[in-house]
């Protein structure tokens, strides 16, 4: 997907990932169709960078993150971690690989075992992978707690004695204990208050810098994402509909869904005059996604027409390579046949019933 800086190999490389959950009916539990939670998702995460996976509830972002770690089994596709085919691994090598890829959960209440002390929780990874024991393990736990901004004496506390922000720090320390190279951050700050959220966001950024971590940062909050992400992938109904370096996505969102999403974020400025695109209706069920472009029933692109309901839009480059810093050279990919340039030529579109030629449509400019 990305032909960036020659020689840099992605740490995580996902191609055509699909996760379908069978819908069972009746006593015999026969499968009656499937919920296509994730339906053909591809992306790379490079060492030391943050790729944000953004979307609303039910878009499949959490399932994607879990499937990459094989906490959920994928239906199809390939997942390479540093060249290793994760989906082909048997139980024991997978268990070993888990040292290198970790997860931080959203809910700081349900993600910690209420019957284990903070120290025992952080120590768990050390024990499982036999990294340290006895006094050395204690010392490692203390260092980890300090690294995430907790006091070492808090090791003897239970989760219910901690605040939400402190619990989230424990969850981060637990993940760090096994010295991973890649962490799936599944909405790590969305359950926290604003001031605490900023503390945890900063902590995650410091850890990335100090340890060279790569993050897959799953979030619904575009303002948080803007602060942490080098690149952003927007998901809708199990698919990635736009992916770009952060600046490019916020400056020039091309997929109409991304535009609506960005315009809906409340701006803490009473004088801000912005056009808001209010989408009508709800997200369709992933058990019966719309044909063609999955967004077409709610789309506000002026050139939307019958072809959108027939042609599945390819995720293709639009605009120039605009990334900088860690995302330098990353392309801006958009799944929309009505945003030029497109490889779905006019003849093909007309054959599918198109009445409008593609036209550049940018109602939300410079959201940054």
């Amino acid at each position, binding site marked *: 997907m990305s032909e960036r800086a020659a020689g840099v190999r992605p740490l995580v490389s996902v191609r055509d990932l699909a996760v379908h959950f069978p819908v069972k009916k009746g006593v015999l539990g026969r499968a009656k169709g499937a919920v296509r939670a994730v339906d053909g998702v591809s992306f790379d995460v490079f060492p030391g960078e943050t790729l944000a996976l953004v979307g*609303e*509830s039910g878009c499949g972002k959490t399932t994607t993150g879990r499937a990459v770690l094989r906490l959920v089994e994928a239906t199809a596709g390939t997942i390479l971690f540093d060249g290793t085919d994760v989906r082909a691994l048997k139980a024991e090598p997978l268990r070993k690989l888990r040292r290198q890829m970790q997860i931080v959960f959203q809910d700081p209440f349900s993600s910690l075992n209420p019957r284990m002390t903070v120290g025992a929780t952080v120590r768990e990874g050390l024990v499982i992978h036999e990294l340290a024991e006895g006094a050395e393990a204690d010392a490692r736990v203390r260092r980890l707690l*300090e690294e995430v*901004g*907790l*006091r070492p004496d*808090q090791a003897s506390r239970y989760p219910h004695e901690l*605040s*939400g*922000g*402190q619990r989230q*720090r424990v969850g981060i320390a637990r993940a760090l204990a096994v010295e991973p190279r890649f962490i799936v951050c599944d909405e790590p700050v969305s359950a926290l*208050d*604003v*001031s*605490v*959220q*900023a*503390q945890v*966001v*900063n*902590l995650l*950024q410091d850890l990335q810098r100090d340890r060279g971590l790569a993050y897959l940062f799953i979030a*619904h*909050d*575009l*303002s*948080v994402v*803007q*602060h942490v992400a080098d690149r952003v992938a927007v998901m809708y109904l199990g698919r990635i509909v736009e992916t770009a370096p952060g600046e490019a996505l*916020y400056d020039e969102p091309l997929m109409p869904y991304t535009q*609506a*999403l*960005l*315009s*809906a*974020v*409340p*701006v*803490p*400025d*009473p*004088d*801000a005059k912005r056009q*808001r695109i*209010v*989408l009508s209706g*709800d*997200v369709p069920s992933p058990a019966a996604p719309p044909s063609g472009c999955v967004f077409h029933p709610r789309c506000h692109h002026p050139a939307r027409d019958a072809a959108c309901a027939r042609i599945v839009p390819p995720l293709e480059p639009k605009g120039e390579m605009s990334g900088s810093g860690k995302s330098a050279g990353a392309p801006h990919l958009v799944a929309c046949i009505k945003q030029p340039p497109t490889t779905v030529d006019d003849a093909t579109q007309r054959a599918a019933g198109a009445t409008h030629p593609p036209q550049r449509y940018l109602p939300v400019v*410079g*959201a*940054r």
Partner: protein
Amino acid sequence: MTPDPLLDVQNLRTTFSTDAGPARAVDGVSFTVGRGETVGLVGESGCGKSVTALSILRLIDGAGRIEKDSHILLEGRDLLSLPEREMRDVRGNRVAMIWQEPLSALNPVMSVGDQIAEVARVHAHASRAEAHAKAVEMLRLVGIADPEQRANEYPHQLSGGMRQRVVIAMALVMSPALLIADEPTTALDVTIQAQILELLAEVQKRMGMSILLITHDLGVVAETASRVVVMYAGEVVEEAPVRELFADAHHPYTEGLMRAMPRVGGTETRLATIPGAVPAPTDWPHGCRFRERCPYAWELCEREHPPLYQIGAGHVSRCHLAIEPERRAHPHVPIAAATGAGAGE
């Protein structure tokens, strides 16, 4: 602050008895809501904003009580001295409330139409047919397509946004004078949040009610409220017209919240934080309650609990900086950051 306000909360104090002693969740809160106005009540978890809302409706349960010298005047009547019978009539009739989680506010085994109709039957003594017609009308008002059809559906058949619309429809049946919305969009996706906020603004314009919007999201406040009340540690720490608050926040807590908030379009690479955490309501610090987390605090803040200083027209702030404004130019590391390494929160 508003002449002849619709709601006038005076010195509200709500205390809960806990194992650790009395928790002064709301500790001397005063504010007003004018007719047709939207007031934002802002604060983080534990600041007392939700307890304030429940106190207005007198829905404080067993362990809590509203202290004697508190007053809640609605249209000039003190709700705290009404007999429970009359209070029941106020709830849902003059004051309605919507909640963060619409599913928990709806009865799972009753169709949404029947639930809305129920309100009309209880409060307006409407006949079955009238109540049903009212329910359909309300569903149409809140923008639900196919209201006749939807009226027969059950909460679990609806999406989150649709459920919140139903809850709003229920709240509006009796055309209340005041709608209290407690984090009405927090559980919703951002595009659905946009729909709901738009709906609230629209029905307000149509029905002319006042809205007390309780939220932690400064973005939501900026877009909906005309006046903002900021709460911290059971107290009002700042109150101002929305423009003035965002342009010129006075209280260091408000200032900190604004800086800590990531925003689309922001250019800073690192978010500002407020070190430490909200103290426990059983143990509010003496002096200024924000003192340990404040970059400007000095010995006066420890010695004297700050009053609400007048800062400008309709702008008050509970901060001694009002009398020594030059100190704002010399911030220092807050005590909470120096001692707790961010762990105190």
